[in-house]
């Protein structure tokens, strides 16, 4: 057994302390080190001699945290057709993405700059291909750059995650994937790691992305620090594994390198997770360079764990593996990966069994479930195709449908594992259906393939549709991938995790063994502890000195078996003290203190949440009719007349029906030609000249009475000199408009002046200056005349009078 001791590994990189997902320096905060990266480092694996390339918008090769591991041979600029992947710089730093991903993988360690990459001794390159028109050619070129040199390609992009796109690799890119896994890494197969998608908020489903949904890519999703689904996460059954990533604003984020030689603590999305797994795979490849592309997928399936990731659909498949549509097989475990990789025996050759296509058309009726099944012998009669043990399962379907987003598709394996191949997508209103679309699931991994497979399709209309247009399942085909023999050595199958982590000095290469022997603490489980116990243990015994070693607690026990327990005097923030069981129990999400575990049993809220007293709930946003009081951290009810208020109950910004806003007050709406007198608390008459008003005076009209004119913000019976009267549609009164410049009075239409100011003369309805032009000779006046400039109001001052006087 190896105990990870963070104090044995310290880096001088300034943001190392913020890398909460790798180490747990601050004992008072939550530990999220289940990815066990440091333990893999302590075993001596840091990505040496492994080459990773980031397919993105470029990589800043001169970044101080990347320069040491940067590899020119793992880089190319497909957009610019040269060997320099440096991103194009602009004011918005649009092309920062690739550099951020690269840092996660292979930022240098102990260089006093930014962070420590997960594979901090790996070679890192960048393929710049997103900063231009992306075509099938561009993608195929990018995926095929030096496949014998680059081990891992990490891509954190894809078709739009808008919840209505169904798109995937074109024919050349598909071929590039196939060539990569067949010929890359000198026949071992290129490893393609892919971010599963960011369309969670749009209700997108990652099965609609043909890249993450491909058997050739390792699709990675994300979990927040507290093990929740991040807001951006898409679900689907092709997700293989998960890493920690960013989440809500009150959860910690991921730090990495940024362009312009900077560091950032603001990198979010599933693009955090794909490079993390690329780094962890690099550690496994260092442990065993002979792993092929399927070995790596098997390793991830075998070693990833559900730990405390929260999903409503965790279930155990027919091969005994826990799997979910949110996280695949769970959180990656770097230490387990390297340990397993070290002793890994290549899995048997991959077989593909393509079932017969079922072309019987079936109508898909709204609000009904159609079920169709296929019995397969998994090509048992063909040695080269027989699939006894499953890896990926693909269902190729052709469906027509008037609104694609209303469809849900499920696949049930012979062992009873139900994968949701497609979820409803509210925004997908398109009537394109699916044409030979391949849905993929990894949920049946390890199960026996033979038997009855059931396909279920459900059409749940999200809005009114023409009942005469129905969907139709036109064709479906089951494609099974797997092996004819059991993929693992039967002996190793029985190993538990603790056995799996067994290590001896002989497991390590001599140099590494010498280097890391001093870092390894071997614990003899049989040895009894005879020292002093922690005071929180009381006299009840312990097997070590810390509060986590108590056999029972004097006060309260905090934690659980999975993440470890310890004894505490009082329960910390976010927990309630359960006196009956002497345990600290989690309050509901967002509660800081509580009197029960329910969502409506909060007594104070965490930062960012507000307590609603009448329901004892903590919410991020106060409901309508309440405002968020930052000081008290509570939702306070607005004044009864307010629909919405800010800062104070009576500082209204929106009123209930029947009330209108007067300043920041909501006052009753008064009848026509009356106003609300706030002193007397009643409606009173406006001035006779007003149609509506804010007070009794004639200067307080907001609209004038009929037959009155709005003139200089007053209501008058007639317009004064220099103004004309005009009707304005929608207003009960007329408005006085000013005649044109230099005009004393004008026609009722306002277009023609009838009397000019002194010093101006009337010419074609306009007032022109009496001054003459001194350059208006005959030629000039002929030009003015022939161009008819004097007929245009814009040019009427243009020496017209001078030319007219001159004849």
């Amino acid at each position, binding site marked *: 057994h190896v105990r990870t001791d963070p104090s044995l590994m310290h880096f001088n990189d300034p943001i190392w302390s913020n890398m909460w997902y790798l180490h747990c320096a601050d004992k008072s905060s939550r530990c999220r080190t289940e990815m066990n990266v440091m333990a893999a480092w302590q075993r001596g694996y840091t990505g040496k001699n492994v080459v990773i390339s980031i397919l993105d918008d470029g990589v800043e090769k001169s970044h101080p945290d990347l320069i040491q591991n940067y590899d020119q041979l793992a880089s190319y600029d497909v957009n610019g057709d040269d060997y320099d992947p440096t991103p194009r710089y602009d004011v918005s730093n649009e092309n920062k993405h690739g550099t951020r991903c690269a840092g996660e993988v292979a930022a240098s360690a102990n260089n006093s700059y930014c962070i420590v990459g997960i594979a901090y001794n790996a070679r890192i390159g960048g393929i710049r291909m997103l900063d231009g*028109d992306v075509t099938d050619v561009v993608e195929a070129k990018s995926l095929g750059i030096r496949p014998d040199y680059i081990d891992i390609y990490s891509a954190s992009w894809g*078709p739009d995650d808008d919840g209505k796109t169904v798109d995937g690799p074109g024919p050349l890119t598909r071929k590039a994937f196939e060539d990569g896994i067949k010929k890359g890494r000198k026949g071992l197969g290129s490893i393609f790691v892919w971010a599963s998608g960011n369309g969670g908020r749009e209700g997108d489903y990652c099965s609609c992305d043909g890249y993450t949904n491909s058997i050739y890519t390792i699709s990675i999703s994300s979990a927040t620090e507290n093990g929740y689904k991040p807001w951006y996460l898409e679900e689907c059954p092709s997700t293989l594994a998960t890493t920690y990533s960013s989440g809500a604003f009150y959860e910690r984020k991921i730090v990495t390198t940024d362009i312009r030689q900077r560091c950032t603590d603001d990198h979010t999305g599933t693009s955090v997770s794909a490079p993390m797994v690329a780094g962890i795979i690099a550690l496994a490849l260092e442990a065993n360079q002979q792993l092929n592309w399927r070995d790596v997928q098997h390793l991830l399936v075998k070693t990833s764990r559900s730990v405390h990731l929260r999903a409503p659909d965790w279930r155990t498949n027919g091969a005994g593996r826990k799997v979910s549509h949110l996280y695949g097989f769970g959180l990656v475990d770097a230490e387990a990966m390297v340990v397993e990789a070290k002793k890994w025996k290549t899995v048997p050759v991959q077989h593909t069994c393509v079932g017969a296509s079922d072309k019987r058309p079936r109508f898909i009726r709204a609000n009904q479930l159609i079920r169709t099944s296929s019995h397969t012998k998994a090509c048992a009669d063909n040695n080269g195709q027989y699939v006894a043990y499953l890896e990926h399962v693909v269902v190729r379907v052709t469906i027509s449908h008037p609104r694609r987003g209303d469809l849900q598709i499920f696949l049930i394996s012979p062992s009873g594992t139900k994968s949701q191949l497609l979820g409803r997508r509210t925004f997908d209103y398109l009537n394109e259906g699916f044409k030979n679309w391949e849905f993929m699931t990894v949920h049946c991994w390890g199960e026996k393939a033979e038997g009855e497979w059931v396909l279920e399709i459900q059409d749940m209309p999200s809005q009114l549709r023409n009942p005469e247009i129905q969907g139709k399942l036109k064709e479906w085909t089951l494609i099974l991938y797997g092996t004819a023999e059991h993929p693992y050595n039967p002996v190793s199958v029985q190993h538990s995790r603790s056995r799996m982590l067994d290590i001896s000095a002989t497991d390590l290469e001599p140099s590494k063994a010498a280097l890391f022997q001093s870092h390894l603490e071997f614990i003899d489980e049989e040895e009894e502890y005879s020292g002093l116990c922690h005071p929180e243990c009381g006299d009840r015994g312990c097997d070590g000195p810390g509060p986590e070693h108590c056999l029972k607690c004097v006060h309260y026990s905090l934690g659980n078996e999975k993440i470890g327990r310890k004894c505490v005097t009082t329960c910390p923030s976010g927990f309630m003290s359960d006196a009956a069981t002497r345990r600290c129990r989690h309050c509901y999400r967002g509660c800081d203190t509580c009197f029960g575990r329910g969502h409506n049993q909060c007594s104070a809220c965490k930062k960012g949440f507000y307590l609603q007293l009448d329901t004892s709930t903590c919410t991020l946003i106060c409901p309508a009719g309440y405002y968020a009081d930052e000081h008290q951290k509570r939702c306070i009810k607005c004044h009864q007349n307010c629909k919405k208020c800010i800062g104070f109950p009576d500082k209204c910004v929106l009123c209930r029906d029947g009330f209108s806003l007067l300043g920041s007050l909501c006052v009753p709406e008064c009848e026509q030609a009356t106003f609300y007198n706030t002193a007397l608390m009643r409606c009173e008459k406006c001035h006779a000249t007003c149609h509506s008003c804010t007070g009794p005076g004639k200067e307080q009209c907001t609209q004038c009475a009929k037959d009155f004119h709005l003139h200089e913000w007053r209501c008058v019976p007639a317009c004064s000199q220099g103004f004309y009267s005009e009707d304005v549609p929608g207003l009960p009164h007329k408005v006085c408009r000013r005649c044109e410049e230099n005009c004393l009075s004008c026609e009722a239409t306002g277009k023609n002046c009838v009397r000019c100011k002194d010093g101006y003369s009337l010419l074609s309805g306009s007032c022109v200056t009496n001054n003459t032009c001194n350059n208006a000779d005959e030629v000039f006046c002929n030009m003015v005349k022939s161009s008819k400039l004097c007929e245009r109001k814009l040019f009427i001052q243009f020496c017209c009078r001078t030319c007219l006087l001159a004849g």
Partner: protein
Amino acid sequence: PNPRTIYSNHWAVRVSGGPEVAAELAGKYGYLNLGQIGNLENYYHFHHSKTIKRSTRSSRGIHNFLIMDPKVEWMQQQEVKKRVKR
């Protein structure tokens, strides 16, 4: 409305016989041969500078002659794909 396909002035062409044959074909029909597509044998990247860079209609004219050439086994005008960073 459904998103419309945008065609570029780049083509993928499958030609057997090596880079010389591809270069000869490109020259014959006025294309610039940008070389083999990544690691894909017999697949070449052609560019036609006199075709509009982005269009909602696929190009015809000279391109029809290229596809009819017996040495061309497959050809595809490249579509601009919307790809987003995650």
